């Protein structure tokens, strides 16, 4: 676990050279990476979503692909297409951007449902099939998709059933004043990403992904985890709660969080730390809730406060 700890530290520090001041969020991104999950970044434009993806890719020395979704995009723009090579007289498969280790799917809500589902299917299956031929995706495959929550015109919101595929939903938000000044300073001459060097290898990441599966969860922690998820289903203002996919994701992410702190066991704090990002987007609120100005965060906060942890007083 110490290795994982150092690995994540390196990653976070490296990425923080580009993304100023958002250490928690960067850590969450690293957790997501280690948990083999996909990340949905829902945020206002211009706060560094792309930068995050790019710096992550550069830090691990992995290939970086980028899809900028527009309404007229076709699935083949995502997956790749077979092109007839006249010289060789056969169809060659030109892989699409999806064949990268880190894929940035920008503004995924602007794509048509058909294109969206192409990507989502790839995320699920870890392979693509074009013209009957299956091409496996790289061993390390992480999608960082972005959504702009402000604009709703001309968008196709990801249905909640699909959004489930993403392990976490995070947002970066505006930098603080000092941080914004720091950004200006850093980008005075050139963008720091151009200087970013890889600090870990893809293999190390893959190793870490496997290693953290041995992090131990005590029974009480498992129960706590499942209680949390079940509570999301029972909550008053929630129409549909989290699925077992959520529990699994929480499980894996909890292990990752413990691992990046160098611990061999998961504590409820770890669970609580990632539960928000992991469960938030899986809740469908009841119609009345929005009228009461409730959103997923408030409901989740209440759940966190009331579900007793094994080490609490209650």
């Amino acid at each position, binding site marked *: 676990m110490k290795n994982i*700890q150092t690995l994540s530290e390196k990653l976070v520090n490296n990425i923080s050279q580009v993304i100023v001041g958002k250490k928690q969020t960067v850590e969450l991104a690293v957790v997501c990476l280690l948990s083999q999950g996909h990340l949905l970044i829902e945020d206002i434009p211009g706060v560094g979503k792309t930068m995050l993806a790019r710096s992550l890719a550069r830090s691990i020395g992995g290939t970086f692909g980028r899809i900028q979704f527009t309404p007229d995009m076709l699935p083949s723009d995502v997956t790749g297409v077979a092109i007839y090579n006249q010289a060789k007289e056969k169809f060659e498969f030109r892989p699409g951007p999806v064949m990268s280790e880190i894929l940035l799917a920008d503004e995924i809500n602007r794509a048509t449902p058909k294109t969206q589902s192409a990507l989502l299917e790839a995320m699920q299956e870890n392979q693509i099939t074009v013209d009957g031929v299956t091409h496996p995706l790289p061993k390390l495959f992480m999608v960082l998709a972005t959504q702009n929550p402000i604009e709703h015109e001309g968008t196709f919101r990801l249905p909640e059933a699909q959004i489930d595929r993403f392990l976490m939903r995070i947002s970066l938000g505006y930098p603080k004043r000092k941080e914004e000044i720091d950004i200006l300073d850093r980008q005075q001459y050139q963008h720091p990403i151009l200087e970013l060097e890889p600090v870990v290898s893809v293999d190390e990441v893959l190793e870490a992904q496997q290693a953290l599966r041995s992090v*131990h*969860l*005590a029974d*009480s*922690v498992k129960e706590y985890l499942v209680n949390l998820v079940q509570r999301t289903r029972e909550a008053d203002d929630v129409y549909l709660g989290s699925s077992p996919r959520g529990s699994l994701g929480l499980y894996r992410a909890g292990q990752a969080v413990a691992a990046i*702190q*160098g*611990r*061999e*066991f*998961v*504590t*409820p*704090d770890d669970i*609580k730390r990632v539960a928000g990002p992991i469960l938030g987007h899986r809740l469908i609120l009841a119609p009345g809730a929005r009228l009461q100005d409730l959103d997923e965060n408030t409901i989740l906060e209440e*759940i*966190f*406060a*009331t*579900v*007793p*942890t*094994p*080490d*609490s*007083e*209650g």
Partner: protein
Amino acid sequence: MIAGARTFIKEHLNIKSIRNWLLVMVIFIVLSNILRDSIQGVENSLLVLMIFSGLITGWLLSISPLKTWLAALIAILAGNLVLVVRIGRLGNLLRSLFGQIWLFIKQIPGTINNPDQTLNTETIPLLISDLQTRVVSLGSRLFTWFGNVFRGEPLYDPVAIAIIWSFLIWAIAIWTMWLVFRHKKPILGVGPGMILASSSLVYTDKSPYHLIPLLGVIVGLVILMDYDRREQHWRETNLEIASTIRGKMLRITILLALMLMSLAAVIPSFSVENIQDFFNRLTENQLDEEDFVRSLGLEPPQITANVNVFDNQQWGGLPNRHLVGSNPELSDQVVMVIQVEELGPLDSGEDDNQQQVYYWRSLTYDRYVGRGWVSRSSIEVDIQPGEKTLSDWPESYQIIRQKVESLEDGQQLLFSAGIPLSADQAFQVAWRLKGTELGAFDLFGASIPSSTYWVDSLQPLGSEAELQQAGQDYPDWIRDRYLQLPDSVPERVIALARDLTVNEATPYDRAIAIEAYLRKIPYSLELPPPPNDQDLADYFLFGVQKGYCDYYATTMVVLARAAGIPARLVTGYIGGFYDQELDAYLVTADLAHSWVEVYFPDYGWIMFEPTGGRSAIDRPEESKPKFFWDYPASFDPFAPEKEKTPINWSQIIQVSILAAVLLGIGAFLLSDFILARLPVKKQLPIIYKRIYRIARWMGVRPQPGDTATDFIQVVIHLLRAYGSGSKRAEWLLEAESLLKEITWTYYLVLFHPDHGQGIQTRETALIYRMLRTRMWYLWLLVRVYPNHFLRFFFWENEPLSIPAYPKSRN
């Protein structure tokens, strides 16, 4: 009118006022309890009257719009009025005066119509002048008392005592009500009362633990009144307060009061010597402190370990001094139960017991000082059980065996029918004289510590014929003492003595003549206080011409001595109701009595009964025994059961508090010991539960969903908020790392696959103990400086991460 009454009730009879009233009443009840036992000369009814009238007057004055000086004037006047009427026993007089005035007024229309009828104007001026003299006499007594004190010769005068104490209590009651209800300053208000109570406690054998409830009530009153003031202030400034504050405050008040009371019970009080020294240093005159104290009606405290009962009795006012000047407290409360057996030598016959009137003597007095009786100094001798006080006595003494059960505590005097000879327990006799000749003994009295005892006593007897022949050959020691009369006895008393005895041949007949003369004087208990410039016997014979046993006895002794017959005063009880079932005499308090003993050579001190209304003393036909009779050497082998010592409640409370404290400490240490030796899996949850508990005291209440990390975050912020300012900051802030360490251990136990195997439990227990002390200190800080708490709300929300591995482990 009704609206006015309603506002009055709302303003002055609301819950708060009633509560304050009740608390003040409790204080005064305790005060009166203490005073009642320490002052003699102020009986219960007087005390209660002064307190209640003082409280009510004080309250009325305080809620009235009068200015302070006016209220004070009214209070003084009212107090004096109540005082004078009560102590001077002017009630009846006033009643008859007003009755006469009323009659007079009723007669006026009659005389207008009928000019022949004359107005009866005689009685009214008489009554008025009677009233006047009485009031003036009260004043002059008080004046003389003060004069004596300043001259350095304090005088015992029960009337002055009553006046001074009543006024003092009245003043204190007024003061307390004034300060509590008008100025809302409870501490200042109860201050004088407390001072009075605690200083009086010195002079009684009541333990100072009676001050403890006083302390508790005063603390409660002070806190509650202060809270009222604050609440009013909040209301005026429109501050929102939680409705639960009052309840919490009440609980804290009660808890604090109880805590203080327990503390006070355990901490020892000042010693009597300190206080005595202090008093000694205060008085500049050559004032004899004990005399002065006695002249106030107080009993000076016993300094030495051997409580000497006789010191208190050396000085007598009139022996039953509380009777003089005010209505005696004649109660029919049984004070003693006495079984009697006449051992011999005279055969009195068993059935005669019921008709026998026994005189239970306690003390005798030899020296008359005009206003009362004193005993000359005596030597105390300890007598062992079964040992005899006298080895030899004249033949004519009857030996009586009695079993005395005293139901009144504190006296410790030994009561017996006759001179105490021997008892079944150790006792002390005080001899004024013990000579070698037969019959040459002069006993002041005896004391015995227990309240149930068997005693054999010698009753001198003599038949008329024998006594008449006794002669006048008085030994020197009799002449020196028992014919003495002070110069203050006026001539006419001596002349009367002479007149009465001029025709009697023998001393016995002379004594009988005096006795007979006195017995004709009417008996009465309603008397004005005797003037202090007039000799008592003179006053009785030529002044008021009525009285009760003390007067009769005193006068007889004076007359007898004036006639050359040696006589002395004896005090004790007489008779008692003979209860068939118990076969004992039930002696009640109202049977307190004094009588006379006259000395006859060869026969000793023979009893005489001068009190009018009492039956004369039976003289036996013959007093010399017919046969040789040996007084049994020892008591009945079936010794009476040892009487149970009364339950000493204060000691029990003290011991149990001490025991509880020790037990608490022991349990505490034991739990720590056990905790260090528990297996890890059990230890940590217990430790953490305790940490949660201490934090809860500080107001840290985590929600169910808060993990231990969330919890200690809050505590650490508290620590930092208070730790930075406090004097022991460094020490306190160590708690932060201790907390983290313990939390890490806790996590290991809960979540690690090995569940904490390999953790040193002793080390953990040690860490917990170090943490605990610091947390208690933090709790104290939080409670003492609650405002500091506000700082605590503005911390930055930095999540705390548990270290991967704490520095101490690798």
